[in-house]
């Protein structure tokens, strides 16, 4: 408990015993005892926290002992970093997209922007549309995670003669290291970026190479579609087949219910996507994916992550969600059928956000699933976050009740984004949950990490 100077009036003190007075500093003391910090709404970012990403702390942050978080806000492509020191004190820095890329007049971020973090190189990428001056072209920005506002590479604008194709906003981004394919050669230190937008898949070899001009140097292919409104959701890159090479997974589903109630998870070999250099306006067709998983929902792959639930197995598991049916699927290595994790509450958008990481220190990642439209204690769309532990080929919820806001309000949308951030001081991963206009950081999580990462107690 923090010792504070007690301020009380004499009469209040006299009456306190029987009349119910209490010292207001008590509440400051109590708030210092809690182990969840809520940071909210810096600057003018109305929907601060639509996406969250975390990178290992470095000396470039406050003290190298805390965590380094990237938080996307929605207004005018607001980007923030939320940096913690080892003692839990934080600093928030924000910058608007316009300041980063002054040539573009940005619109607001979409509610579910394409966003990815490269924790190794401390970079993050996000996708959006340019402003009206560029007629709303698809756009990808790659930023230095340690130096807010510094672009790692020039902005990539998907501009071409086919305006319809140009104006497709990215829906999924993944950092990757891909083998050479087609006409493309991998330069390891420059890295690759895989972007899904519309029905297309864009693979940017050596994306950090500033010499690569816009709309050139992309390997782009157009996936086969049978329905007019069928487009991609999230994209993920990992060794999903156990062949030692990365695969590209992408969710595809209709945007209109008139186009059916099924969607697919398509897993491509790199060679099935990367053929030759192409232009945005004249993409080649992708080869059929080597694996297709049909899901009885319109939004399979709305969010996807990969994880190694069995650390001894190099093949990654693919986790993909279908929030419309409150279900998250886990395709474990070697398994014929995915494991379906679901909750009985309909309309909760269970699976809207996903994260996988080891929270309890057993080297086996936990699966964190956001359900931002869960109703809590009669409060509509207050939101909840479910945490599952993997063991024996099954997932079990860590606590009977999901995480929630202790004092919920309607449309809090708690769980609309989730991230697992390594805490520099202890190496402990901490859970970070985004909600409408705010971010919750759990310095302690009973049942997973009982010691407060700030104090070790």
């Amino acid at each position, binding site marked *: 408990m923090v010792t504070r100077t007690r301020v*009380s*009036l*004499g*009469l*209040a003190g006299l*009456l*306190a015993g029987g*009349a*119910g*007075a*209490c*010292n*207001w500093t*008590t*509440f*400051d003391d*109590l*708030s*210092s*005892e*809690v*182990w*969840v*910090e*809520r*940071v*909210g709404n810096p600057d003018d970012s109305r929907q601060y926290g639509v996406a969250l990403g975390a990178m290992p702390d470095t000396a470039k942050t406050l003290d190298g002992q805390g965590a380094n978080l990237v938080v996307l806000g929605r207004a005018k492509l607001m980007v923030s970093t939320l940096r913690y020191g080892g003692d839990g004190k934080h600093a928030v820095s924000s910058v608007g997209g316009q300041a980063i890329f002054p040539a573009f007049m940005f619109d607001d971020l979409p509610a579910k922007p394409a966003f990815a973090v490269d924790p190794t190189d401390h970079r993050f990428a996000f996708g959006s549309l340019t402003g009206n001056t560029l007629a709303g072209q698809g756009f990808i920005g790659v930023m230095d995670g340690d130096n807010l506002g510094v672009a790692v590479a020039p902005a990539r604008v998907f501009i071409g003669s086919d305006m319809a194709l140009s104006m497709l906003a990215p829906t999924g981004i993944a950092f990757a290291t891909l083998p050479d394919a087609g006409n493309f050669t991998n330069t390891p230190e420059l890295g690759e970026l895989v972007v899904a937008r519309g029905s297309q898949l864009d693979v940017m070899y050596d994306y950090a190479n500033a010499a690569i001009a816009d709309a050139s140097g992309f390997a782009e292919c157009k996936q086969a579609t049978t329905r007019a409104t069928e487009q991609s959701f999230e994209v993920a890159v990992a060794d999903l087949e156990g062949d030692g090479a990365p695969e590209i997974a992408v969710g595809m589903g209709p945007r209109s219910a008139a186009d059916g109630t099924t969607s697919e998870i398509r897993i491509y070999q790199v060679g099935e996507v990367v053929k030759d250099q192409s232009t945005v306006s004249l993409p080649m067709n992708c080869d059929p994916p080597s694996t297709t998983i049909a899901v009885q929902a319109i939004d399979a792959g709305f969010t996807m992550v990969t994880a190694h639930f069995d650390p001894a197995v190099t093949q990654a598991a693919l986790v993909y969600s279908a929030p419309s049916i409150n279900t998250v699927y886990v395709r474990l290595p070697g398994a014929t059928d995915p494991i379906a994790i679901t909750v009985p509450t309909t309309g909760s958008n269970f699976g809207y956000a996903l994260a996988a990481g080891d929270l309890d220190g057993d080297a086996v990642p936990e699966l964190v699933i956001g359900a931002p439209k869960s109703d809590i204690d009669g409060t509509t769309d207050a939101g909840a976050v479910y945490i599952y532990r993997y063991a024996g080929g099954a997932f079990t919820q860590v*606590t009977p*009740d999901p*995480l*929630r*806001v*202790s*004092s919920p309000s309607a449309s809090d949308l708690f769980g609309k984004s989730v991230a697992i951030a390594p805490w520099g001081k202890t190496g402990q991963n901490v859970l970070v949950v985004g909600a409408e206009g*705010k971010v*919750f950081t*759990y310095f302690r*999580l*009973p049942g997973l990490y009982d010691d407060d990462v700030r104090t070790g107690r």
Partner: protein
Amino acid sequence: MRLRILLLVTLVLALGTTRRAAAQGDPWKNAQSAFNQGETYYLSGKFDDAAASFKKAYEARPMPQFLYNVGAAYHMKGKKASEPESYDKAVDYYTRYLGENKDAKDKEQVEKVIAVLKAEAERLRAAAAAAAAAATQPTNPTGTQPTPTPPPAPSAEVEALGDAGYRGLVVIESEPQGANIYIGGKEKGPFAQTPWSGSMDGEFQYLVEKRGYKSKEGRTSADPSKLLVLQIVLSEEDYLGWVEIKSNVPGASIFLDDKNVGAIGKTPFSGNFKPGKHKVWIEADGYEPSEHDIEVIAGEAAEISAQLKGAPVGYLYVRGPGIEASRIYLDGELLCERGPCRKPVKEGRHRVSVRRSGYKSYSTTIEVQAKTEINLKTELAKQPGRGDAVVAYIFTGLFAGGGIYLGLQAQKLEKELKDDIAAGNPPVDQADPRFDRGKYFAIGADAAYGVAGLLGLAAIYYTFRDKGRPSIGVVDVRALALTPTVGPNYAGLSMELPW
């Protein structure tokens, strides 16, 4: 009480221990009978018969009043018939009355009557002689007898005296005689000794007391035109003791056994006391009280002779409008249940307070000196209303109530948060709105208590502050002058108070 001349004896009373004079040979019975007869004759204008009856009454009991009544009867006879002989008789009996009643209070008046009647008798005789001389003259030529001369009218002096009236009489006798008579209370001192006769008018209380005899007391009424005889037979007292109390200061108040019942009399004093031990206080203004323990033995006499010494005390006299509803305190002790209050006060500095419900109290410090009297005249001011204090108290209550409510709300939130923090699920975040809400409630409660406290202090101030005009008092100091005083039965010091 006025002394009057009695003309008739009408009543003999024997009250309680008085004995009715029933025997035929009782002189009072005969006197009463003759007095009643004389009254009847007198009222019917038969003055010679009335005079004869009053003479019989005198023969039965030689009371000077009866002689006066005889004189009065002849006075009226002489006036009616213009008889010098009757006037002579009237002068004779009036003179005898004065001769037997040396201390007659109407002596001067009676002597004036005598002089007038004597002159009238001489005038009538001179007139009669003149008339007789005229009668010896020769008859008139016609031989007719002269017309008889009517009796002369009373002179203007006689007419100026008016009609003479008979007088009643009050007689108090005891057996044995020589008992003290007290009228209207013993504290006034002895009125006379038996036998006593005189005039009284109206109802009166009497006490007849003689050493060695039981005291007798009663109440009766007297008519100035009747004869009232109180014959009191005192029985010998064999279970009371006779006590005589005197002091060097005459008129000192005597208290027996309990001061609260008031003084039983003033010195010099004598009376029967019940046998046993008694405590007697003798007090006089300006003197230290004298306290005596006596043991009264039945049938024996005891005497207290008090030597009062001048005391180092002064007097405090508190008065003023509404003082009868006020309490007077001296040095915090109740001095008088109500005013006006005059009490001896020891020398020195004292604090006097005058308190009355609904009025502002008045207090002052006085310096009392021996043989002085401090006259404190107070005028208490009405206690003003306390509406402002009531309003302040109400607001104090409202703010205190608000503080309590807010404080309870804050405590409720505090408990809720503590419980939630302890439970850990849902984990409470540091920006939980309940922290701010609880803090606002707590600050609000403290502020409300603070305001309530200030208002409470204001209310207390309003309650006790002195507003409106104050109660006032005027102190006046007067010396109590002790002067040597000598009287027929006493000698000592006395003082005169100027109010």
